[in-house]
């Protein structure tokens, strides 16, 4: 081998090593960003899955509840719990003045009355007795307990007063503050109070929107794809349609939101803020994604299969329905799921059709007002209270979990059916 040739060869190897290095560093960068992002979300959000409770002794005094000693169920439902709730909190400090009593009351959520009521509804024999009841701590104390609240700020810049902190520290010392898994985060709807805010409304809103979107987008897109791929003549007109489907896929989502606002709400007068309208709007957005995926997977079916069926005397329709479409289904379905995952994470169009409204009820159907998970993130991220910071991250975690499950599902479908026949 002459020297020149050897040099050239070394040069080629060096170029290859260099290229490999570029590739590896690109991957490293991507992974680094992802890790930082995930770490940030988890470190901020994990504490939202815990909730702080104050354990407060409550005296279920029949007289104060304005009921007799042996009340019926209805009596208990209608009884007045506010006074005993207020008294229980005030009793934490025997020497409290009126202002301090008021501060004591604000150490727990405004649900305290309801929490006490639930206690006695579950166990009516408590009447006349005293029992320690778990009350949801206010979001500020919740943050104090989780160590997220700067205690060293001057008092006038804090939402928690020195007095509240003193009583709280006494309770902690007595072991009367407990942290438990935050079930209400999943079962409560949104609330102005961070300690009572949950994702139930937005979660159901998302599910309903996705279902509506699926039911509209999937059949329309699959039929369009089958027609374009298997039946339509290839001419200028179908080329034009194809180009425009691709254009539609590139339209910014907010434009679809405007369309939903201008057409669905203004002309058809569909109910505002509902998953129905949200789902229809999202389906417009998902349509091109599914059409493109379905066409690609129809194209991927080998022409030899179509020829085989046609040569057996199958009509075009039979060839399509018996062979081509079933073979293209795995690809179409995984494309659909990816399209739905996109729709699930969509925020802008939903804001425009009013799904950004504050909804503190859990929707029972697509016709009820609801938020959606990404919009919920947006709403909470706008809120000033410290308690919402961790909620935002927790909600992102739920949304990401949802998306990961959907994508995993798409992968499984694709792999399972690919293996079967190749």
């Amino acid at each position, binding site marked *: 081998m002459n020297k020149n040739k050897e040099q050239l060869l070394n040069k080629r190897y060096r170029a290859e090593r260099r290229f490999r290095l570029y590739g590896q560093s690109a991957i490293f960068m991507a992974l680094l960003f992802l890790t930082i992002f995930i770490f940030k979300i988890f470190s901020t959000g994990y504490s939202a899955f815990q909730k702080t409770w104050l354990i407060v002794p409550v005296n279920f005094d029949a007289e104060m509840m304005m009921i007799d000693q042996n009340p019926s169920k209805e009596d208990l439902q209608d009884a007045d719990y506010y006074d005993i709730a207020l008294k229980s909190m005030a009793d934490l400090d025997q020497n409290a003045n009126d202002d301090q009593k008021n501060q004591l009351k604000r150490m727990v959520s405004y649900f305290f009355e309801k929490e006490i009521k639930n206690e006695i509804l579950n166990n009516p024999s408590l009447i006349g007795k005293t029992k320690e009841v778990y009350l949801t701590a206010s979001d500020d104390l919740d943050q104090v307990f989780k160590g997220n609240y700067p205690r060293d700020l001057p008092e006038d810049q804090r939402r928690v007063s020195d007095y509240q902190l003193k009583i709280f520290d006494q309770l902690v010392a007595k072991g009367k503050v407990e942290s438990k898994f935050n079930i209400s985060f999943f079962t409560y709807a949104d609330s102005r109070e961070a300690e009572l805010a949950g994702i139930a409304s937005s979660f159901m809103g998302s599910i309903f929107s996705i279902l509506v979107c699926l039911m509209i987008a999937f059949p329309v897109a699959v039929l369009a794809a089958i027609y374009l791929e298997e039946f339509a003549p290839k001419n200028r007109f179908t080329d034009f349609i194809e180009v425009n489907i691709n254009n539609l896929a590139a339209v910014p989502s907010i434009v679809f939101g405007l369309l939903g606002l201008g057409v669905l709400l203004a002309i058809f007068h569909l109910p505002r803020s509902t998953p129905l309208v949200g789902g229809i709007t999202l389906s417009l957005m998902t349509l091109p994604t599914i059409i493109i995926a379905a066409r690609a997977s129809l194209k991927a079916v080998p022409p030899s299969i179509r*020829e085989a069926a046609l040569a057996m*005397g*199958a009509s075009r329709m039979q060839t399509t329905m018996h062979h081509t479409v079933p073979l293209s289904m795995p690809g179409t379905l995984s494309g659909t799921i990816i399209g739905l995952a996109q729709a699930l994470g969509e925020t802008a169009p939903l804001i425009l059709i009013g799904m950004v409204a504050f909804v503190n009820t859990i929707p029972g159907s697509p016709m009820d007002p609801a938020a959606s998970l990404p919009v919920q993130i947006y709403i909470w991220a706008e809120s000033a209270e410290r308690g919402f910071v961790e909620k935002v991250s927790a909600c992102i975690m739920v949304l990401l979990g949802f998306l990961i499950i959907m994508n995993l599902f798409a992968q499984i479908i694709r792999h399972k059916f690919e293996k079967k026949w190749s």
Partner: protein
Amino acid sequence: MRKNGVKMIKIKAKDVDVFYGKKQALYNIGLDIEENQVTALIGPSGCGKSTFLRCLNRMNDVIDICRVKGEILINDFNINDKSCDVVRLREKIGMVFQKPNPFPKTVYENISYGPTIHGMAQSKQEMDEIVETSLKKAALWEEVKDRLHEPGTGLSGGQQQRLCIARAISVRPEVILMDEPCSALDPIATAQIEELIDELKKEHTIIIVTHSMAQAARVSQNTGFFHLGHLIEHGSTDKIFKNPDNTKTQDYITGRFG
């Protein structure tokens, strides 16, 4: 087959021209195909022999830009006529392709598909019978009788091609078109298919496109030689191979081009 010494003509092609867009692929083809005989179509690549074969069951319809002119009479009925129903035509004219293309379904479903869509079996037993006889005729029964409900795509290449032949004969076609059926197979599988072709000609008229002149000589009774879209010469295989009239045929057969 000759009845009272007269050739029975199954297919009669007259002045067939085929165009792909503006490009003409076949010029003025006129060819008679005898019943219950094997007719081989030979010629160099791109000479139009497959195109002609696909005219016979109108598979060229699938190609948007393809136009076919002229008459093709099968049982004295012009299949290029508007009144011809393609589905009925393809029921009568089966086809086997170059690459084995079983449906990605079970062996059983591959065979039963044709009879099902044409409503040829009234009961499960009848269908079982059709599947069994088709596979037996395709000399595949012994090899797959225990795996009827396994994917047809899991068979070997030669088995897959015989499965495709079994699928084609399941609807009892009068004519079977074979487009280079052995080009993707090894010599042993090829020998099996050739043997099968010889057997099948008792009940079917067979037209086979092949690249291999040896194969044409082995399996066919008649041969047509195509070159650049023209049918140069056709006649009995014996004559074409031993004493062709045209020098181009002579050159091709002796391997001087192609």
